[in-house]
């Protein structure tokens, strides 16, 4: 299944969840937000949110600078 993760096309297994994608990118438990097709998915829903073909997934990192 083809999806776009942080702007790059990737092949992921069927029934991949948002939580799976986050785990494949980082070990960090906090400071991460995920948008699927330009809508942020609350962290509590990551494990149940399935990715579908051609979804655009953006994994964002909190930055602290000011």
């Amino acid at each position, binding site marked *: 299944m083809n999806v776009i993760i942080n702007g790059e096309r990737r092949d992921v297994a069927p029934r991949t969840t948002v939580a799976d994608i986050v785990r494949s990118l980082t070990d960090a438990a*906090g*400071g991460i937000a995920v948008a699927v097709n330009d*809508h942020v998915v609350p962290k509590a829903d990551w494990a149940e949110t399935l990715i579908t073909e051609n979804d655009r997934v953006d994994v964002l990192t*909190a*930055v602290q*600078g*000011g």
Partner: protein
Amino acid sequence: MSLPPLVEPADELTVDEVRRYSRHLIIPDVGMDGQKRLKNSKVLVVGAGGLGSPALLYLAAAGVGTLGIIDFDVVDESNLQRQIIHGQSDIDRPKAVSARDSIREVNPNVEVVLHEERLDSDNAFRIFEPYDLILDGTDNFATRYLVNDTAVLMGKPYVWGSIYRFDGQASVFWAEHGPCYRCLYPEPPPPGMVPSCAEGGVLGVLCSSIGSIQVNEAIKLLAGFGDPLVGRLMIYDALEMSYRSVKVRKDPECPLCGKNPTITELIDYEEFCGTVSDEAQEAAAGSTITARELKQMMDDNEDFYLVDVREKNEYEIVNIPGAVLIPKGEFLNGEAFAKLPQDKKVVLHCKSGARSAEALAALKGAGFSDAVHVGGGVLAWANQIDPSLPTY
């Protein structure tokens, strides 16, 4: 979504003010009404640093009547690359005072209120109280969660922005009408994972790219026009030169602004953000040497292996003689261990001691039990041992 103006209009504008703000007054959306609302507005800017500098200058120029500035720090030479409200002659002066002087020059009509203290859980309610709107320009996660929680608990809107290297994010958090910072980022990243600008750098002009968005949103909220950045996260990439926004919903499970809140008062934010992780604190306890002790070890020709855990570009700016560069990341993923001698004491250092403490925790976990790190890092070395070295 448009929202009603936050502030009632002032009675009138003086003749001088009409002249000064004429380019606003002739925009139909702003007009006399909008400008009078700005005149009556009270905005608190948290931090007179990278984001606070352009934000304060533009808020002042725009005619916001009262500007509060909270900052406990003094101007450092390394601030001047981006903190454009301060100048060469302001070095070592309090940032709040320096910012006030610049604002007076830009627009003497603005009343400036100084809060020369560190924002904390004890003073936050008192400091926020008189203001209509808060603009967050702080530089660390602990204060960012403190600003968020205070604003939500007081029912005040705030304009949030954060920056790193070439990347910026901005949003308006107003729990009454949309999500808060915790709906977006429920927890901070693990300590040490996301570098600060002091560790990772920031393109100077990025401060204005994001600070301007914050002021833009502040003005819209105060005067009540346009589509505010409530429920949307603006993401800016200066390398690609792209701005885009993603929608953020209020999280019904948010512990602060959700249906069943569990955070009903301010907490200990240093602890919440674990400014240095427990593992690092534990590893550093009893295994921290001073820069002077390091120098003594060198002078005594002790046999040890000195490792600089910063990044390559930092090493190129300044380094301690004899130090081998192995960035912290290699300690966290384990690659570093094979590069280290088994029969020598390992001494780690970084810029100021936080990253080397994290690396030390990983190193001790891998069995290097007599390893130590240098408290204060290369900055302490430059200050105490070799003042001819540059600092950053």
